[in-house]
């Protein structure tokens, strides 16, 4: 089985499409913030120490920790 790719694996400027979440509780928060399956997600920038990261989804910008980003599975 190939390891799934998550938002945490993206490079700056790289895009992906959200297809699933691995953590139920975090996913509820993410949904409320507008990260929906099928949405295009782009890694916009990283904080100076590489974490947290800043992503663009649905035309606005969210920041989150890598741990949270790694629960968003993309294709």
């Amino acid at each position, binding site marked *: 089985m190939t390891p799934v790719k998550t938002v945490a694996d993206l490079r700056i400027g790289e895009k992906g499409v959200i297809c699933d979440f691995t953590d139920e509780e975090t*996913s509820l928060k993410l949904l409320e913030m507008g990260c929906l399956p099928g949405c295009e997600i782009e890694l916009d920038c990283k904080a100076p120490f590489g974490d947290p990261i800043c992503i663009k989804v649905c035309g606005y910008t969210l*920041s989150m920790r890598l741990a949270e980003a790694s629960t968003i599975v993309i294709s």
Partner: protein
Amino acid sequence: MKRLKVALIGNPNAGKSSLFNYLTGLNQKIGNFPGVTVDKKTGVSVLSSTVQADIIDLPGTYSIYPRSVDEQVVFDYLTETLRNETPDILVVVVDASNFKRNLLLFTQVKDLGFPVILALNMLDLAKKDGLEFDLLALQRELNVPIVEINARNGKGVDALKAALVCPVHVVPDIFYKSSEVAGPVVSYIRSRFKIKSDYMALLLAHQHQKTTILTDDEKKDISELVAKHHLQSNSLQYRETLMRYEAIHNVIHKVMSEDARQTKVRWSKNLDKIITHKVWGYLIFLVILFLIFQSIFAWSELPMEWIELGFGALKGVITNLLPSGYLRDFIIEGILSGLQGVLIFIPQIAFLFAFIAILEESGYMSRVMFMMDKIMRPFGLSGRSVVPLISGVACAVPAIMATRSIETWKERLITIMVTPLISCSARIPVFTVLIGLMIPDTKILGIFNLQGLALMAFYLLGFFMALVSAWFLHKWMGGNFKTYFIMEFPTYKLPRFKNVATSIIEKVKTFTFEAGKIIIAISIILWVLATFGPKDDMQKAEDSISKNNLSTEAYENEVASAKLEASYAGQFGKFIEPGIRPLGYDWKIGIALITSFAAREVFVGTMATIYSVGNTDDELSVRESMKNQKDENGNMFYTSARAGSLLLFYLFALQCMSTIAVVYRETKGWKWPIIQFVYMSFLAYASSFIFYQLFK
């Protein structure tokens, strides 16, 4: 006159507070929601010649499923309506430039069955981003009154007022059919609690453990019911949110057209390249911090002097008006000094919150949290802890109140626990006196004042100790708490003067009334302790001073000093002397330590009384008389070791009743304030002990 109850609800950054300010002007009251210290902002707005509205500004929330204290307040307010009177109208403030996500909350609120008006804000921003709305179509799709507003310049506020006067009908069409996913549970809860909407019943089923309106028995019944029907709260919420977005998607399709959007985002992004840069980012942050400190200290000096002069004059007038005696002393020493101790901080608090409001409004604060998160995390703190910690430099009380934006309870608690270690402005007078005793007034390299450097070193030491304590608390509390740092990165905006001004007024009011009450009460108690004592002892003290060769003033000062020694406070100082001797303190310092529990800066006034300088808060004359004190061998009493030990004590000890009170309220119990008091006292005692024993 008819009075309506109106509540404003919306996402964070949707412009709710600006709208609230426009609706109510300065007719605002800040109270507390029951049980929590989340500010409850209410105000009165005149809608028309015959209708007034009581408006309540609910905290910003992304959804009605609460995840933070702020969001819990919104949930409680909405469910509270089952027992008490309901709001007549809910105004949902929607940011048009983030339309889709903002509508999620709207659909939830509407399904709850309240009369709803949609206030569509930031259409101008949306237009710039290339979003066009067909408002008529939107009104038709959502089936609620829609008012276009601009909360930044007040446009549309009159139209909103007009819409509030017209009756709003609750329309039954709903975005999410609760009865289809949990029919039996919903219908049972609906009939048992007489709820008028399916969705409110479902919400109770989800959140019954967290709500305050149900009794334990009712909670138990619902728990059993939920278990019986295998309702998985999380997955149910997940599906609900998806279905709502689907419904929203269908609406948006019909009412909004999207062009390529870019310009503004790009501008913001370029700015972010510098502001969150590895090097420049931190440098800019440091420069901004430096500017804030400079201006807090430099600009507030003058108004603080005015306050001091004003009280000085007032005390003078009262001294002349009233005959000498307990009444006069009580008014001057007990009440006025306490009042002065409160008011003196207002300039600094006002400046600090002006800066914080500007940084928050502009969107810069989110960047600071973003940059600092990784650095704070090993200590059990988060990027969001930075604002409270910085605010702690002015006063721990508003700083601790600012922690409520931290969603994770553990992170919030640790932030509350370590914030009082940050040197607050009450420590400044103490530092000024003691550093003057400890460090010579010389210059290094021609430009740096050695005392100034020492002052900075003490600030840094406080900050460092806060981090160390946070780390210990983090390890001690353990547990693998789920922490969140998912937050919106707002685009940069110009701060609005009106909002900054309201924020300042709000914070100053909160401080004056909340902390002020306690400070004045303690001030009065301490006055009693320091004025009265066992009768015989007090008389003896007065008789022991001979009038020979003394001016009236010097005589009175000597008597005051002797009486203080004989008073209850003095006796207590002597009582604890054995305990503080290893730190290098005598009973006189013991008295100051006790009185300082009202507020640290009381130290200066107490020292003045003890060393018979007379009734003065002037730091220089107090420092001079302390310098002249001799120990039993005729050497200088306040050696560098003693002064340093005392400095460390004041740096670390929790000598602040107001802080204890606010921590009690924020953590809803005595456990954490007591732990905080104990660990900070230990830190203070241990570090003073080590320092004194090493350097004496």
